[in-house]
């Protein structure tokens, strides 16, 4: 095994990542080759020097500044439709309440899509743990930030009293069918069906 080959294996050797059939010859070479041992010593200095070339401190607001344009870009269509709100109120007390819903007129986006924010108002008479939520979306309806997802599921707790869940959605051309919001707690299930026709303009 020549010096160049051995020197390329030094990192893996010291990191215990060398296969056994190579490790033996590399170690044997290093034992007998002063030049390669000298190289390894210098390599340690070089690596230390490189690792201690410290960049200037990152500006504390860099992440925020870098992400802000994305946020603004993405929120613009939402802002356009800020006045468009569909409210679905659910009396969640033991899931026996009667859902109420009302829709405001919609605003169309430039590419044929429309944005809406659905608000679920959940009134729980007592704290409710581990409520399972499931959203089922018809074709051409997406939750913003989750393109292509037809279902979204999660579990969380409801506080006693009013709770509010806002769901920003995008309606694309051809949106048809029903959006289903399903809540499950203690074996009891509550389903809300919202026709896309009531969401679209």
């Amino acid at each position, binding site marked *: 095994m020549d010096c160049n080959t051995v020197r*390329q294996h030094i990192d893996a050797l010291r990191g215990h990542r060398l296969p056994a059939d190579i490790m033996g010859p590399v170690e044997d070479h290093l034992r007998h080759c002063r030049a390669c041992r*000298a190289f390894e010593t210098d390599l340690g200095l070089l690596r230390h020097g*490189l690792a201690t070339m410290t*960049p*200037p401190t990152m500006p504390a607001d*860099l992440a925020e500044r*870098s992400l802000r344009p994305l946020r603004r870009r993405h929120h613009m269509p939402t802002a356009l439709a800020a006045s468009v709100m569909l409210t679905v109120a659910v009396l969640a007390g033991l899931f026996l309440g009667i859902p109420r819903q009302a829709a405001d007129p919609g605003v169309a986006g430039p590419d044929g899509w429309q944005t809406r924010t659905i608000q679920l108002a959940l009134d729980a008479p007592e704290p409710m743990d581990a409520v399972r*939520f499931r959203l089922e979306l018809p074709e051409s309806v997406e939750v913003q930030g989750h393109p292509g997802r037809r279902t979204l599921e999660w579990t969380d707790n409801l506080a006693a009293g009013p*709770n509010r869940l806002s769901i920003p959605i995008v309606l694309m051309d051809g949106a048809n069918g029903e959006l289903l919001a399903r809540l499950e707690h203690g074996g009891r299930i509550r389903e809300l069906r919202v026709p896309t026709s009531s969401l679209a303009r």
Partner: protein
Amino acid sequence: MSTVVRFWHHLRPNAAFERCVRPHVPRLYRLAWRLTGSQEDAEDLIQETLLRAYPKRDQVLELDAPGPWLARVLHNTWVDRWRRKGVMRDAYSLDDPDSPLPEASTSDEPLLVAVESAALEQALATLPEPQRVVVLMHDAEGYTLEEISRILDVPVGTLKSRLHRAREALRARIAAGTFSSAAACQGMR
């Protein structure tokens, strides 16, 4: 605040992407600074990187380790910038993985007593760009060769060879205390 309000953050546009990306920004910044050598350019590079990554946010959110993926976007963005300026046109053609490695130094004694930052920076500037990138990513930033392979889309074997050439060159140049400006020009022509 109702616990349900938290759901809104899960579903809110950008929230998941931001939450995923934000912890990686400091390491991306360090890499950007090492590549550009300028705080201002590093910040610009970060911003452009995130703009490029955003449309592929679903892909990012599916990754177990998005750091190397984001580093790849950053590196590609940086290369594109330089290519637009015509600076990096020939840089990669100078790194022929099939060319024989330089003869290994035969000194029986270490050549370096200490490595000062200024000397190291000068020596780094003389390296061909592909070698400079791999030695910075591996030895300065701690990326593994496998990660660098994914970031640069270059086989691990080639990276090993580049890293070895870079280290040998740095060692020799720092030891000699001379830095060839001609070599630097070749690397970043």
